[in-house]
């Protein structure tokens, strides 16, 4: 358990000093948003639906960047090898990396969601708390599997290219659910339609975090 906080704190502090990840991810998300606006034309038909979709695509791409960088830094610094020499529980290492990635992606989302609303001329949704919950659940799902797969991908020749290939197909339920929930929220639909998607997100998160915790020790055997 101590290992968990140690790694998490190390990652956060390192990011605070270098500010590499969050900044790059945020800027990249904004670039994606703007690009989509150009691609879609100035006033798309149903801005709330389009905004939700574009936003989550931006988070997916930015999140992939962040995962790649996060685990590449780990490999470069040789910290992981040092950690593995210790008898610390592998599960805690995985959780620490995952939570770290999640925190960074959430910070990016806090910055980008209002920007999306502005760029697409949407009013603030009636239930912003539920929007926040959607973002959190979606991010957990993304980062949960993503950290594990990034751990696999960094070791290979393909590095950065392999992670999207591995992650995106597995990620599909998160993307579908998060986008649907966000669309419904931005369209101010009643809550019972939205909770269905959130339940699906929760199910995905639970299943895959459990699976990733179990699988992580097979990934990092050196």
């Amino acid at each position, binding site marked *: 358990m101590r290992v968990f906080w140690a790694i998490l704190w190390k990652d956060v502090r390192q990011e605070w000093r270098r500010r590499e990840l969050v900044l790059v991810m945020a800027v990249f998300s904004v670039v994606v948003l703007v690009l989509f606006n150009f691609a879609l034309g100035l006033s798309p038909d149903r801005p709330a639906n389009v905004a939700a979709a574009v936003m989550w695509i931006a988070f997916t791409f930015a999140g992939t960047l962040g995962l790649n960088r996060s685990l590449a830094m780990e490999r470069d610094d040789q910290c992981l090898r040092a950690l593995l020499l210790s008898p610390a529980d592998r599960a805690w290492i995985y959780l620490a990396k995952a939570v770290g990635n999640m925190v960074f992606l959430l910070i990016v989302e806090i910055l980008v969601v209002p920007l999306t609303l502005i760029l697409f001329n949407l009013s603030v949704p009636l239930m912003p708390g539920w929007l926040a919950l959607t973002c959190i659940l979606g991010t957990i799902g993304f980062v949960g599997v993503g950290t594990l797969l990034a751990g696999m991908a960094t070791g290979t*020749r393909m590095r950065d290219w*392999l992670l999207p290939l591995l992650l995106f*197909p*597995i990620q599909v*339920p998160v993307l579908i659910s998060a986008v*649907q929930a966000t669309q419904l929220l931005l369209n101010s639909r009643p809550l019972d339609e939205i909770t269905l998607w959130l339940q699906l997100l929760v199910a995905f998160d639970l299943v*895959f975090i459990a699976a990733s915790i179990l699988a992580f020790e097979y990934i990092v055997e050196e």
Partner: protein
Amino acid sequence: MESGKLSRTRWTRGIWIVATVTVIAGFAVSIYLVFISTGIERNLGFSQKIFYFHVPCAWITYLAFGIAAISSILYLIRNNQVWDSIAYSSIELGTVFTTLVIVTGPLWARPTWGAYWVWDARLTTTLILWLIELSYLLLRAFVEEPEKAAKYGAVLALLGALDIPIIHYSVVLWRGMHPVVMQSDAGGGGLPSEFFVALMISLATFTLLFFLLLTVRVRLELVRSRLTNVRNRIFEQGLA
């Protein structure tokens, strides 16, 4: 295995011959049943015949992935090379069948529903399964050490297996189910019996073919990994 040969005893050779002949006969019978014996379906026309190959391919797709998932679990638990070979072979063979499903699906969909691709649950899930299988093969190809590749592959196969039901359910929620295959002439929900028989025979033939090919592939994979081990050991010891 005897040194240097993919040799078999007379008994297993007998089984091979019987199996191969059965597969060939099975395909002959299937073709006869599909094209000559069964009538043309009233609503869908001649293109409905694709159904007799498309459905078995889809069944094999999921069978292959299931076998791969179970083998992967066994590999992670027991750490025996054989299970990994089965998993890899099953995924590789499964990818072939998944490709066939994705190719025959639109060819059936176009004359039947008017569109080449409909984002319904089954077809979409199969497409994503195809992508997962491809990413598995790429992962195995690009990881350097064989044992690491095996472990990574096993984990990915497991994640995929866990994911498929969730993907299916989420696409169902999102899009709606596979349209009902066809109404029988009697107005009931099932298939007319002659169609059903043709489908079952086709299914059995394909399944047998799958297991035949899988056995061949697993053998080749076991030999390949042993050869790689021997080669690495030789070069390590500097005999080259």
